[in-house]
C-alpha cells in the first residue's frame, strides 16, 4: 500500500529548513485557516453527536453545541433496537440490515460491470465507441425523479416490484454509468504495450482482465466502491418508491422515525438515528479517504 504521494509543491517550494519569521507567519496562517475551516465543517457533526447524547430536558435548555452534562447513549440504544416505527418497535437494526442487503450486491455488481465496460471501452476500438461511451456518461446525469414511474412499471413487468433484488437492479443500472466512466478513464492510462505484451503471451480477453488489469486497478476499484456504496446507502427516493414495508432501507426508516406528523419530536433520537444511518458511509470515507484521493488522481481527474 502506497500512501498518497507527498506534496509536490511543498517539496518544490520549501526552502531549506531555516524558519525565518515570514515563514513562521505563513505556517501559522495556513494552520489557522485550516483549523477554522475544519471547525466549521465539523460543527454540524459535532452538534449531532452532542445532541444525540443529551436527554430531551437538556436539549430544551441548552444550545446546539453545548457539551452534554450527563451524556447518555439511551437515545442510541432506543433508536437501534426499540424505537417504534409505526407498529414495529424494533428500532433501526432490521432496516440497517436491509440497507446492507441492497448496498453490498448493488455496489459489487455495478463495480464489476463498470470494470468490464471500462475495459472494453479502453481497449477495443469499434465504430461509434466514443459516442456509445458518451451516451453512457450522460446517464450519470439523469435526475432520478423522472425515472420513478417508468421504472416502477419496468420492475412490475420483471416481477421485482417491492423486492430487494428490484432495488439492487435499479441501483446497478444507474450506478453502472458512473463506474464505467471511472474504469474507462483509469484504464486508458494503462500503457497500450501492456495489453500487447499480454496478447503476445497468449492471454485472452478474460486473462488480460483478471490477471493483468484488475490487480493494478485497486485505486479505481476503491473510488468506485466508495462512490457506489455511499450513493446506494444514502438513497431515499428509490428506497421509498420501490421497497415494500419490510424491505425498506435504513434511510426510509429514519425518515419514518424522524418525519413524524403527530408525535412529539425526540431530537436526541432523531440525531442518533441520523448518526446510525450515516455511520457506515462516514467510516468508509474516513478510513478510505486516502484511496479515494489516489483513485481520483489515477484516473477520474483529467489533468
Amino acid at each position, binding site marked *: 500500500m502506497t500512501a498518497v*504521494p507527498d*506534496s*509536490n*509543491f*511543498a517539496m*518544490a*517550494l520549501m526552502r531549506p529548513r531555516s524558519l525565518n519569521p515570514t515563514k513562521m507567519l505563513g505556517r501559522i496562517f*495556513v*494552520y489557522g485557516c485550516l483549523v477554522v475551516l475544519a471547525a466549521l*465543517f465539523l460543527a454540524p*457533526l459535532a452538534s*449531532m453527536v452532542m445532541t444525540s447524547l443529551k436527554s430531551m430536558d437538556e436539549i430544551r435548555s441548552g*444550545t*446546539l*453545541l453545548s457539551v452534554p452534562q450527563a451524556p447518555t447513549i439511551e437515545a442510541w440504544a432506543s433508536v437501534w433496537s426499540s424505537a417504534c416505527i409505526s407498529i414495529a418497535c424494533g428500532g433501526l437494526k432490521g432496516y440497517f440490515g436491509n440497507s446492507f442487503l441492497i448496498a453490498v450486491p448493488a455496489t459489487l455488481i455495478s463495480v464489476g*460491470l463498470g470494470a*468490464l465496460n471500462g*475495459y472494453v471501452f479502453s481497449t477495443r476500438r469499434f465504430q461509434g465507441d*466514443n459516442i456509445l461511451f*458518451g451516451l*453512457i*456518461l450522460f*446517464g450519470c446525469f*439523469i*435526475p432520478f*425523479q*423522472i425515472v*420513478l*414511474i*417508468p421504472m416502477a412499471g*419496468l420492475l412490475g413487468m420483471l416481477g421485482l416490484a417491492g423486492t430487494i433484488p428490484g432495488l439492487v437492479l435499479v441501483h446497478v*443500472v444507474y450506478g*453502472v454509468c458512473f463506474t464505467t466512466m471511472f474504469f474507462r478513464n483509469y484504464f486508458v492510462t494503462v500503457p*497500450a504495450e501492456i495489453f500487447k505484451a499480454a496478447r503476445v503471451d497468449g492471454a485472452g*480477453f478474460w486473462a488480460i482482465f483478471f490477471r493483468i488489469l484488475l490487480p493494478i486497478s485497486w485505486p479505481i476499484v476503491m473510488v468506485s466502491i466508495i462512490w457506489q456504496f*455511499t450513493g446506494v*446507502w*444514502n*438513497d*431515499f427516493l428509490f428506497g421509498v418508491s420501490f421497497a415494500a414495508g419490510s424491505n425498506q432501507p435504513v*434511510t426510509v426508516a*429514519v*425518515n419514518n422515525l*424522524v418525519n413524524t406528523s403527530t408525535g412529539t419530536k425526540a*431530537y436526541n433520537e432523531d440525531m442518533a438515528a*441520523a*448518526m446510525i444511518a450515516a455511520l457506515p*458511509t*462516514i467510516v468508509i*470515507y*474516513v478510513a478510505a*479517504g*486516502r484511496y*479515494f484521493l489516489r483513485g*481520483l*488522481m489515477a484516473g*477520474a*481527474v*483529467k*489533468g
Partner: protein
Amino acid sequence: MTLSKRIQAALPAFVLSPSLAAIAICVYGFIAYTALLSFTGSKMFAKFDFVGLRQYERLFDNPRWITAVENMAIFGGLYVVVATCLGLYIAVLIDQKIRLEGVFRAIFLYPMALSFVVTGVIWQWLLNPGLGLEHMVRSLGWQSFTFQWLVEPDWAIYTIVIAGVWQVTGFVMALFLAGLRGVDTEILRAARVDGAPVHKVYTRIVIPALRPVFLTAFVIEAHLAIKSYDLVVALTKGGPGVSTELPSTFMYSMTFTRNELGVGAASATVMLTSLAAIIVPYLYSELRDDRRA
C-alpha cells in the same frame, strides 16, 4: 474463423450488452417516455391524449416555475463559484505539507458521506433562529445577533447554498488536491529559481495548469446543482412561501403531489435539455482526443 475465435471476437459486445441494454431502456427509453408525456394532458397517470405544447405554455405561465428557474440561477451560480473557490483554497492549504493531512482531508470529505435526511436535519437545526446559530450566539452574550436567513423569503435560498457547499466542497477539494499533486514539479522549481513568490507561483502557474480540473469540477457541480432536490426538501421544503423552489422540486411536486404529470414531464424535459446543454459540450471535448492510438 473457428468457434473459439468467434466467441473471443464477440466477447466485448457480449460484455457490454447488458449495461447498454439497461441504459438504453432505463435512461434513454425513460427520457423519451417523459418527453412524450410532456405533450400529453396526463394528470395522475400517463394518458396519451396529445395536447401539443399546451403543457409547456402552462409551465412557463406558472409563477412557481419562474421562481424555480430564478432560484436555480442564484443557487447554481453561487454553489458552483463558492464550492470551486473554497475547494481550491482548502486544497492549496492542505498541499502546504501540513501535519495531520489525513485528518484534515477526512474532515472536509465526510459531508459527502451523509445522506440528505441527515444533512437536512442538521442544517435545519443550525440555521433555525430559535434553535441554532442565532440562539447559540445570543446565549453567549451577543444579544443583538441575528441570523434569520432560513426564515427570510429573500434569504432562504442562500441557506440552501450553505448546506450544498458544505456537502460538496470536500469532493471538489479532493479533485483539486489530486490535480495539484499531478502538476509537474520542474515548472515549480523553475519558477522558484526565477524568484517568484509562493502566491504568485500558485496564481500564475499552478492554477492555470489545473484548467482540466476546473472543468471536471464545474461539470460535477453543475449537474449536482441541477439535480439538487434532497437538500431543499430536507431543509426548507421549498419555503418560506415558494422562495426556495428549484426546478427539481417543482418537477417532483407537479408529478407526484399535484397530479400534473404532463406539466411535470414538461419541466423535466426542460431540465434535461439544459443539462444536456452543459454536459454534451463537455463530453465532446473530453472524448474527442484522449484516446490512445
